[in-house]
């Protein structure tokens, strides 16, 4: 089993090396920066956990131990937030895209990854929730994700 992006409920967009994620179900949205955005990018490409740690180690000036702990922590947090779900699918066989590196290929200073979470839209979703109707069953049957 591996963790994959929960595409049924979330939208995401990378901009300027940062990632914005919107959880359509909870009304919560997130900003991921630096190493956290890198972790997301690699997960999104189907990269396995150990390779994520290795790839970050090639990019950042940080010990393997701290990277391992941080990747574990972030994966747990992302799963807890409903942004990742467990999947039995195999990882893609194609190699992942390399992370952006500096022009002189020197390793970057490492800042432990943090998930910035915004909950100000939750009240809107609570007051005006959106329920998706099952398109095959029709009204009043809701999609299972509801």
């Amino acid at each position, binding site marked *: 089993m591996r963790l994959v992006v929960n595409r049924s409920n979330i939208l995401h967009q990378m901009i300027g090396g940062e990632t914005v994620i919107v959880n359509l179900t909870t009304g919560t949205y997130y900003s991921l920066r630096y190493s956290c955005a890198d972790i997301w990018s690699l997960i999104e490409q189907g990269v396995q956990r150990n390779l994520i740690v290795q790839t970050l180690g090639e990019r950042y000036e940080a010990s393997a131990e701290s990277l391992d702990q941080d990747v574990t922590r972030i994966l747990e947090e992302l799963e807890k937030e409903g942004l990742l779900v467990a999947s039995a699918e195999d990882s893609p066989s194609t190699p992942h895209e390399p992370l952006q590196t500096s022009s002189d290929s020197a390793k970057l200073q490492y800042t432990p990854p943090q998930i910035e979470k915004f909950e100000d839209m939750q009240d809107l979703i609570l007051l005006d*929730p959106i329920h998706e109707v099952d398109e095959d069953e029709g009204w009043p049957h809701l999609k299972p994700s509801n």
Partner: protein
Amino acid sequence: MATPKAFQLDTALPLGIRTEEAASIWQDAVQAAGTIVERSYRIGDIVICLQFAGETLVPQLTRALDHLPKASGEAAAFTLKIWDATTTGTAFPAFTMPEIQPLGNPRYLLRKADRLAMFQPVDGTLSILDHAHDQGYFWVTDKSRLSYGEEAAPFRFLLGTWLASRGLYLVHAAAVGTVSGGVLLVGKSGSGKSTAALSCLGSTLGYASDDNVLVSPGPQPMVYSLFNAGKLRPDNIDRFAHLVSRIPAEDISLEDKTLMFVDEHDPRQILLQCPLRAILVARYVGRRESALRPASPVEAMIALAPSTIFQLPGSGQSILDVTKHLVEQVPTYHFEGGSDLATIPASLLTLLRQLEKPSA
């Protein structure tokens, strides 16, 4: 007058995609009303036509759109058919509550490849969009059920969804400027977007929106006004007394927002469209003077995209893509609106003049 057929809800078939049945009910509504009242409007290069079965819903659902150039007699790219159940005698589908008990004002969205529908049982409205034929249907049980939000932004779901297919995206933002260029003011509710936009009334800046505006991406992003409604918070009534003076006393609320229509207040203040020059992340910090400082594109995107997505069901990934394009195309700033409202248009005008200067 023939007795109109009742709409039979058949749960074996998906509600809302049976546009043939909606068309049939519409014909019954027109027959009952005895007339079709048409209003055609131009938004940029696009003509939309609203057809009402009778006069009943016209006053409430056209005030927010009446600032748009009229396009009577022109071929419409999109036609929206509108009627109410009470006046026309058409039955509204029975609503069976699902097992989960919904809170607040739930919206039930049903999507197919080329059509979709949204049912709001609390408001008593059903909106159906038939992409394949560029037409839509809006059905309300009774005009008394029309919400404040529906009057301020009529058919927002239908127009917002269809216009996106034509490259005009409805975003949660205020917009002010001149024909040479304007700004989007973005941010969560209470950040001061509406206050900033309304404070520009009476200045040389035009008003395109205080809450929902259309944008088109491209090498030069453009802003287009769709709704001319403005909303005054109770604590702003005194600050905007000059705007409130023309509103009937019974329409002024001390508990909820008061609705005003800028076109009725002063049509010269309306800004129909302009090039987008900057995106401003609004917030109120309590200082007297307004201030601007640079914001990162991602900060602007966070302030614009999520609220837009949640306000327009089904808008989804396209809004993230469009907002990314916008914040990468134009400069982005934090805008701290001052308590001295006169400083707001002054600072925005200064910014626009700086942005319109050719680079050295």
